[in-house]
């Protein structure tokens, strides 16, 4: 029997993990429990049951009010000792991705982070993730008796809610204060952009010379009714665009009908994010740029000359 314990500090992601657990239960002998930590933990239990949890462990210990990875790891470890699961599933948010190896270390467990697929085959758990900077997808069998896997959000589809209830257990954890102190938390300027849903996506890279030149890209986006995404340097290093627009291994994975890549050399860390596009177009000055290895249509040329022409011709063709 596969005994699964689920935790994510983001409720929606916990529900995705539970939905997967419920599917496993349908085909295998499995048990799925979940952990809820923090304020009002107990009140949240009903929702967890509706997505497939058989049993809930909860704690609203005041030391769990804010998310400190060291304290959360200790709480999870103590709950593992109460419930003795074989597999701990964690949502691979940044917080979750720190939590997973911490718990694994305490529990002497094997750990895989950023999983993109999980399969149970012949009593074995096969976990897939990107490796080699995103160039390849590796699959491996987790053989250790204790297993921790952090799963990339949206890997599993959310299941249907069912009006089922289960067992609720208050976990009496014994915790110490974190050794860190959160001084303040500044919300990021959040843009309500969801480039993952875009039908047409323009991705822009280091071929763009300066921030002001984004105007050119925006003009094209307007013509094509497209969203704008970018490679990591533009969002994280130069802050020209918000981090929600980063496309790639550490950013968003998109599946538009059309992806138009401008001034992007085609490093694999970025390509991972556009691999599922139906049609990929690349415009780059450098004929030998790796981007042309993965495009349906590649245009060798300067984006500063090509984009204005492209805008004009698309307008002409539509009217």
């Amino acid at each position, binding site marked *: 029997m596969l005994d699964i314990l689920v935790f994510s500090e983001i409720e929606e992601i916990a529900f995705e993990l539970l939905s997967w657990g419920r599917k496993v239960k349908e085909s295998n002998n499995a048990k799925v429990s979940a952990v809820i930590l923090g304020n009002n933990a107990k009140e949240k239990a009903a929702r967890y049951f509706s997505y497939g949890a058989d049993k809930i462990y909860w704690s609203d210990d005041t030391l769990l009010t804010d998310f400190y990875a060291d304290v959360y790891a200790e709480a999870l470890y103590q709950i593992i000792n109460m419930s003795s699961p074989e597999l701990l599933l964690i949502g691979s948010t*940044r917080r979750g991705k720190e939590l997973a190896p*911490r718990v694994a270390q305490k529990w002497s*467990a094997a750990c895989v982070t950023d999983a993109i697929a999980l399969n149970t085959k012949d009593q074995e758990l096969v976990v897939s993730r990107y490796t080699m900077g995103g160039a390849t997808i*590796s699959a491996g069998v987790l053989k250790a008796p204790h297993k921790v896997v952090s799963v990339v959000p949206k890997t599993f589809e959310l299941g249907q809610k069912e009006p089922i209830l289960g067992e609720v257990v208050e976990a009496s954890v014994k915790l110490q204060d974190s050794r860190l102190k*959160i*001084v303040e938390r500044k919300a*990021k300027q959040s843009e309500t952009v969801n480039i993952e849903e875009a039908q047409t996506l323009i991705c822009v890279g280091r071929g763009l010379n300066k921030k002001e030149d984004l105007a050119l890209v925006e003009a094209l986006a307007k013509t094509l009714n497209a969203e704008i995404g970018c490679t990591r340097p533009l969002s*994280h290093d130069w802050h020209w665009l918000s981090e929600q627009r980063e496309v790639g*291994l550490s950013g968003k994975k998109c599946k538009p009908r059309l992806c138009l890549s401008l001034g992007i050399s085609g490093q694999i860390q970025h390509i991972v994010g556009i691999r599922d596009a139906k049609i990929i177009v690349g415009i780059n000055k450098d004929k030998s740029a790796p981007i042309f290895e*993965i495009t349906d249509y590649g245009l060798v040329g300067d984006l500063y000359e090509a984009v204005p022409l492209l805008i004009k011709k698309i307008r002409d063709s539509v009217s």
Partner: protein
Amino acid sequence: MNIIVCLKQNVDMTQVRIKKETREPMLDGLPFIFGDMDRNALEEAVRMREKVGGQVIAVSAGSANLKETIKDALAGGADEAVILIDPMFTKINSPKTAKILAKAIQKIGKYDLIVLGEGSTDNYSGQVGPRLAEILDIPAITYVEHIEYANNKIRATRNMEESLELVESSLPLLITVTSGINEPRLPSLMQILKASKKPVQEWNASAVNITSADFTGDDYQIISNFAPVEERKGVIFEGELDENIDKLVNALQKEGVLGV
């Protein structure tokens, strides 16, 4: 301040090519380098030393190529280095790496700050930092994109999905840094020449008291590792731009992907 930077060497990922027929990555003969964020970690350590004094020790575990690779860290500003080379260390996963680094750091003894990249360039699994903090039983701040040191405390800004989190900790402390924290310097010729004169200690498994018994229980056996199949048309337009853009727009119209 005594600063330790942990780095991971891997083959240069930008040079990895995929075998067309089998979709396997071809790694033979590729040069070894330190990861991108490992270089950010080194740079941040060096900047801290330049501000407050002290020393920076670079620590890395892996194959014999490290003897060469480590020179990059010394040219980049580390004062000295410890390299951990042993046949047991050539193919090591995150828990094993964390164990080796912990033993090496305990042997080095004195440290205030340990700096790592948030993840390696090849696997980006981000496990070594948090695991190392657990083993050494010291506080850790992950995803750091800015640090300041005052009154024996570190204040660090963590880049989280929804917010920037300002966190404070006393020393000793472990941090993992993001690529946004700095732009690593390019070493000058002088620094590269000096690097080969800096002290490097080489330790094997027994020097840090590691036996095969330390390397059990974390089994994750890779059964396959392939590049996903790319089925693209691969049409290239080259030459007269005006004409080519006509061709491109026509092609996209035929594909039915233009317009709403």
